[in-house]
């Protein structure tokens, strides 16, 4: 569903990787074009900023490029890709976290986005909601609700147990629910 029509539209990920490793620049670009949109939107939700998302996209692709020869083809490429993305993204957020204040004292913001019909506004609402979460919860929500990985896959990508992944998801859901309730209260009070 994420595949876009390219010159390598019909080739599998593994075929593109083999060709790229053999020196085909076109195969590498085919692979990049196949996943860049998905990775960019992933980074957008993880950071809430288009500039940061671009940085992460390039960072992740650079890492993929450097490590391509070590991809063993056991398991889906996309799972491996998001494992790298998770590492790079965590690293990025930690570095950014040092530059900015902690996210614990975020103001109550309207993240429902319900009364704005526009798609981009809805995206903003979702990004705002994601921004409330600590990085480790954000990862689980992203990988589960947007990338549709299984809990086992998520566990492998984040280097945690499947149970930890689940409890992080419930903690995140609780946090988001509280935020929504606060917004409702504010609206009623207004």
């Amino acid at each position, binding site marked *: 569903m994420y595949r876009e029509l390219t010159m390598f539209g019909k080739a599998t990920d593994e075929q593109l990787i083999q060709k790229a490793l053999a020196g085909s620049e076109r195969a590498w670009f085919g692979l990049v074009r196949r996943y860049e949109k998905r990775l*960019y939107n992933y980074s957008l939700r993880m950071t809430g900023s*288009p500039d940061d998302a671009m940085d992460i996209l390039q960072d992740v692709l650079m890492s993929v490029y450097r490590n391509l020869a070590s991809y063993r083809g056991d398991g889906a490429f996309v799972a491996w890709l998001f494992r790298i993305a998770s*590492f790079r993204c965590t690293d990025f957020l930690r570095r950014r976290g040092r530059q900015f204040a902690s996210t614990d004292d975020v103001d109550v913001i309207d993240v429902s986005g319900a009364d704005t019909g526009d798609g981009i506004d809805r995206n903003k609402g979702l990004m705002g909601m994601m921004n409330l979460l600590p990085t480790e919860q954000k990862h689980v929500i992203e990988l589960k*609700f947007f990338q549709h990985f299984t809990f086992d896959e998520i566990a492998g990508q984040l280097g945690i147990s499947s149970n930890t992944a689940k409890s992080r998801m419930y903690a995140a859901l609780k946090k988001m629910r509280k935020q929504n309730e606060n917004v409702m209260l504010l609206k009623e009070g207004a």
Partner: protein
Amino acid sequence: MKTEYSCEQCKEQLFDFVNSVLPPLEKQLVDQHLQHCAECDTDMADIWNLQSQASSWRDERVPRWKRRQFFFDPSPWPMRMQWAASFASLLVLILVLMEGRISTVGGLSIDFATNGSRYVSRPELMQQLARSQDLQRSEFDSSVQKLTSAQIATNQLLLRTVLNVSRQERREDLGNMLILWEQAQDQRSMSTEESLQYLIASQIRDRREIEVLNDAMLQVSTDRNF
């Protein structure tokens, strides 16, 4: 039904329950638990809500960026023949600059010089090629004849000798090229030297930069596996 789900067991299955992918028995057990557990019921609603919100995400377009920026160095992957190729083109460049000439024992000669009015036409070149092929063929025939007359009986020995002959020829070709290369080097002008040095220096510089980058990447890799 005697067995009932605890909250923990229920939460284990809740995501699959919302997505209706649970087997009938598990589905029934979750259903039962939800009827009398408000907490799990709230969790279930949360999952459902976030899922419907997530599906409303509209993928945003990737801004323009330089995809080519890091496809410039083959070093992370096994060495490819790029060095050989660039060396060959460099050699040709120098031969052209130095008006060099390559000739094989077989009789084929290629002129890289423009030599005033001298101009090798296509039919002429084809003729030369045919001639050299004929020469090679007759050379081959004569060596086979020589071998036969010398009464070398086993096919194996014959094959080995033929292979040796052609190997020898190839070695001579390479030797000729090397001599030409050396001559060209001796005669080279300052400008050629300068441009060559620049080429090599920039290659080395690129490599060093890439190595530094690679080291930094490796550093990060060892820190966290990637």
